[in-house]
């Protein structure tokens, strides 16, 4: 498998730029850890006052370029989504990651995240790409729980 199909330039750019890096506000962060490689992330989804829309995603963590770029892109692309939209969005991303190269993410819909499509061919790396997403879903659950 071609290395370039995994590491597109845009991924390496996000790895360096890290959109949303730094937890600056109070919220309900989720800590996720990948025991096989030691990667970890602390990520929180900040919701609008009515609890229905994603205002921003803040995160900190250490990990490989795939896990860090995935978190950065997630923060960039999910801003302003309703939670219903986000659920569909995350479901589609997860399905693509588990597709072993069968599903290529639509660039219109997924923006920079589409560049992570190649990860699904590298089974050992799927968890890297999913780390931030698991944290985001968990943080949404924690945040919603606090509103009830």
């Amino acid at each position, binding site marked *: *498998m071609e290395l370039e199909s*995994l*590491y597109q330039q845009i991924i*390496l750019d996000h790895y360096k730029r890290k959109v949303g890096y730094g937890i600056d506000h109070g919220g309900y962060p989720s800590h996720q850890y990948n025991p096989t*490689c030691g*990667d970890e992330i602390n990520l929180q989804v900040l919701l609008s006052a009515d609890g229905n829309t994603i205002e921003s995603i803040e995160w900190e963590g250490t990990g*490989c370029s795939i896990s860090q770029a995935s978190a950065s892109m997630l923060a960039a692309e999910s801003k302003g989504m309703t939670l219903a939209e986000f659920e569909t969005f995350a479901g589609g991303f997860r399905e693509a990651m588990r597709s072993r190269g069968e599903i290529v993410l639509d660039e219109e819909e997924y923006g920079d995240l589409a560049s992570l499509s190649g990860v699904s061919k590298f089974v050992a790396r799927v968890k890297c790409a999913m780390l931030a997403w698991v944290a985001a879903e968990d943080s949404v659950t924690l945040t919603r729980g606090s509103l009830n």
Partner: protein
Amino acid sequence: MFSLDESERIRGAFPELRELVNGVPLVYLDTAATALRPTGPVERESTFALTRTAAVNRGAHTLAAEATEAYDDARATIATFIGARPNDLVFTSSATEAINLIALACRLASAVGGPARFALSAGDEIVHTESEHHANLIPWQEVAKATGATLRIAPVTDGGVLTVAAVESVLTDRTRVVAFPSVSNVLGIINPVRAISDAAHRVGALVVLDACQSASHTTLAVTESGADFIAFSAHKMYGPTGIGGLWGTAASLAEMPTVLTGGSMITRVDFDSADYLPAPAKFEPGTPRLTQAIGWAESIRFLDDIGMDRVADHESSLGAELYRLLSAVDGVRILGTDEGVDRVGLVSFAVDGVHPHDAGQFLDSKGIAVRVGHHCAQPLHKRLGVDSSTRISLGVHSTLAEVEFAVDALAQVRAFFGVA
């Protein structure tokens, strides 16, 4: 190092080395995780399974008798290889299980008040080291939890060196167990085993040595180690998975309570009590790991045919060259010194600005198989100031050309990820 001819001959025994991975030839530098399998031992194992499978220690028919004899022979072969008496070698499922058997024996003895050597109580101390991997760490954490004993940790230097003085600094008259590795699976440094064992014995502690990383790379002379117990595994010695060894001194094994019980380990059985056979049978309840033992013994013969002294010499010379070449690569930081210590052919390192997973993926695209992550030694990585690392480990089939190829590839990693 082996001559080119000999290297070629040895490499010929490993079919995986002729495989293409992602369209390129495999360069296997992950023996410390699991060693490749040579043809001879696998064929011996499969031929035995196909023609000689029968119940060990049961039945009077010819095949059963032959199976029993083959099983005993396998034990004798492996025992001889480590300088042990066959009856002092217990087959387990893995080195991890071997260590757990001792730890569980300690918990059992602590609960029922003896035997004294294995019984711990609140205030007693268990010593392990900062260079420990999880298999020789977690079982002792559990013993501490169950008995109220305290864990004391012998520090390593910034260069990863475990000194006798460091171990002595945490020994007290309450030290009951000292658990340490012959070679750290991250650092590759050979520890001063005998001196640490002796220091531990001076305070009356049980010595539990994890020899997984040295068993196939240096001669393992169990009695010279001074340890009471030694754990090691077949799959790091070119043998099958699913089998490992627990060696103990005859006195230690005789005294150690068994936590696994059942058939094959008994003499007289009544409905309410039973008498047990002596070691090793005492620790091997149930149907034995017959084909695995046969395969392991054959992998030992494979090593013996080359000669362990020569294997050790080849791997340590090649390892020294690997260390030297890696040291010269910009942005590579090696974990563990090479000054004033003996090493096996294993080097872990961090690449500045590149996560080990990414470095490993880059190497994989060139067919180079290395270990990335924390190598089941999270606390040690923290101690050395990194989350994880990349590890190159050599085997009997490794060559200078492979080492140079891997180092060349590593020299390109930082540029690929845009950090150089």
